[in-house]
C-alpha cells in the first residue's frame, strides 16, 4: 500500500511540476534573491518555471526581477478566481519560460488560507515544471500558506548565529509537515571565515544537519542586480550568480555536481602573476 502510494506520488511528481518553497525564518538572508536567481537559472536550463511571491502586503520579487511595471493581476486574484492563472503570470522579458506571479500589495497575509493554496497548487503543477514559492519571513500565516502545497523546501541560511537559530526552527516545522528540506548557505564572506570572524559553513551544516545543496558568496553584484531588475544569473562574473546556477542544476537532477566552497579571491603570487598577464 505504502509502496504503491509512494510510486504514485513519484509518478505524479515526474509528470507534473515540482513545488519548492524557499524559506528561512529570518528576514534579510536572501530568500527573494535566491528565488529569482534559481528560477531564472532553471528557466535557462529550458524548464518552464514560475516564481510566486507569497509575501502578501510586502511584495518585492517583482522589483528584483524588473517586472513591477507589468503587473495587472496578483496571486490573491488568481487564488480567489478573479482571474485565470495565465492572466496572473507575468512573463519575463529576457528569459523564455520564466514567469512571475506577484503578491498583492494592498492585502494582508490572512486573505489567503492553506486550503486555498493547496487547491491552487494543482493548477500550478499542471502548467509549470517548477514552481518556486518565495516564502515571507516568520512562521505565521504567510509561512503556512507557502508550505501548504509544497513538495520540497530549500532553507536559505546566512552564516550568522541568529539566522542559524531561525533556520533550525523552520527546519523543525518543515519536518513536522514531512518535508525534508535542503540547505543553501548564503552571503558567505571567505575573508571573514578565514579570519574566524564568520561562521564556517561546516558549523552551520553541523547544527542544521540537512543536505547542503549550495554555498553562495557575498557579492556586490546582488545589489546592482536587485536595483536594476536584471537577473543575477545573466550577469557575467557574478560569483553569487554562478553559485545559484549550480544550485539550480543540482535541483534539476545533477546531484553529483560538486559544491564549491567560496574562497578568498587569489593568493599573493597569483595576484602578482595576474598583473603581468600570467596565469589566466
Amino acid at each position, binding site marked *: 500500500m505504502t509502496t504503491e502510494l509512494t510510486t504514485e506520488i513519484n509518478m505524479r511528481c515526474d509528470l507534473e511540476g515540482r513545488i519548492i518553497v524557499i524559506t528561512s525564518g529570518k528576514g534579510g538572508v536572501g530568500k527573494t534573491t535566491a528565488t529569482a536567481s534559481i528560477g531564472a537559472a532553471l528557466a535557462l536550463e529550458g524548464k518552464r518555471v514560475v516564481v510566486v511571491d507569497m509575501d502578501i502586503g510586502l511584495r518585492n520579487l517583482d522589483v528584483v526581477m524588473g517586472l513591477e511595471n507589468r503587473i495587472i493581476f496578483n496571486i490573491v486574484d488568481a487564488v480567489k478566481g478573479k482571474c485565470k492563472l495565465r492572466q496572473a503570470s507575468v512573463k519575463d522579458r529576457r528569459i523564455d519560460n520564466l514567469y512571475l506571479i506577484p503578491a498583492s500589495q494592498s492585502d494582508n497575509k490572512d486573505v489567503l488560507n492553506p486550503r486555498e493554496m493547496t487547491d491552487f497548487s494543482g493548477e500550478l503543477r499542471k502548467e509549470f515544471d517548477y514552481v518556486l514559492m518565495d516564502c515571507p519571513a516568520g512562521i505565521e500565516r504567510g509561512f503556512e500558506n507557502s508550505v501548504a502545497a509544497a513538495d520540497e523546501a530549500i532553507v536559505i541560511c546566512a552564516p550568522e548565529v541568529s539566522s542559524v537559530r531561525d533556520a533550525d*526552527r523552520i527546519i*523543525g516545522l518543515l519536518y513536522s509537515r514531512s518535508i525534508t528540506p535542503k540547505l543553501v548557505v548564503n552571503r558567505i564572506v571567505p575573508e571573514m571565515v578565514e579570519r574566524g570572524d564568520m561562521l564556517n559553513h561546516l558549523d552551520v551544516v553541523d547544527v542544521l544537519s540537512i543536505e547542503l545543496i549550495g554555498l553562495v558568496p557575498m557579492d556586490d553584484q546582488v545589489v546592482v542586480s536587485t536595483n536594476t531588475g536584471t537577473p543575477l544569473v545573466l550577469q557575467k562574473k557574478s560569483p553569487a550568480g554562478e553559485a545559484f546556477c549550480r544550485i539550480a542544476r543540482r535541483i534539476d537532477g545533477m546531484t553529483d555536481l560538486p559544491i564549491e566552497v567560496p574562497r578568498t579571491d587569489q593568493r599573493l603570487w597569483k595576484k602578482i602573476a595576474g598583473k603581468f598577464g600570467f596565469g589566466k
Partner: protein
Amino acid sequence: MDKANQVRTPVRLKGMGDSVYVSFDPAQPIEYLRGEVDRLFKRMKHLAINARVILDADEQDGYEEIVEELGKFLKETFSVASVSCPPRKRLISEEKIRKLDMERSWDNYRSDVLMLTGRIRSGQKVTAKKHLVIMGDVNPGGKVIAGGDILIMGKLRGIAAAGQPDNDRVIVLALDFHPTQIQIGKVLAAGSPSSPGKTAEFAHVENGAIVVKDYLGTDPFGRIPWPRVR
C-alpha cells in the same frame, strides 16, 4: 545531653575504646560540618592530638569525599593520628535485596526513562516525567525538561532543565556540554561560552550552585558499590 537533642545535632562525638567516634549527617554542607567538627575538637584540646578518629556518615554509602575532606582537615588542624571509617555492618535486609538483584538480573525494578534518538531543534521542547536520554544533539533554542536526570549522548547547545520541579540531586550530562542555560531543581545557571575541547561533562548542584565537572575525571557514580535503580 538528652536523646532528642542528640538526634537533631548534625555532628556527634563520643569516646569509643581508644578512639574518638564522630558521626555526622552527610546531607549538611561541608563548610558547616567542618565548622562543627572544629568546634568539638577545640573543646577536646590536647586529647585530640594523636587520637584515632572514626568518621561515620550516619551509616550511609556514597559520601567518601566528605569523609576524606573532614579527615584531611582533622589531620592538618588537630594532628590526629589516624582517620578511618567504621567497619560496615552486614545487614540482613540489604543482603536479601542484593540476592534478589543477582538472581533476577535487576528485573524486579521499573524505571521510567524517555529515550529518544535524533536532533532537538530550535523551538522544540521535550518533556520527560522522569529521566530523559537523547541519543542525538540539542540545538540552540531547543529545550529538554525532565523530572529526573538528563543524559545527552551528543551535543547539548540548548536549554536543559533537570529534576523539575524541585529535585536538586540529579545531573545533566552531555558528551559535548555547551548549554545555553541549565536548571537543576530550582537552581538556575547561565551557560558558559563554548570551549574548543569536547569532553563529556556533567552539571550538578553543589552547595546551592550548579557546578560543571569532567564526567570521566570525577566519575560521580563509580563509587556506588552496588547497582541501584535511579
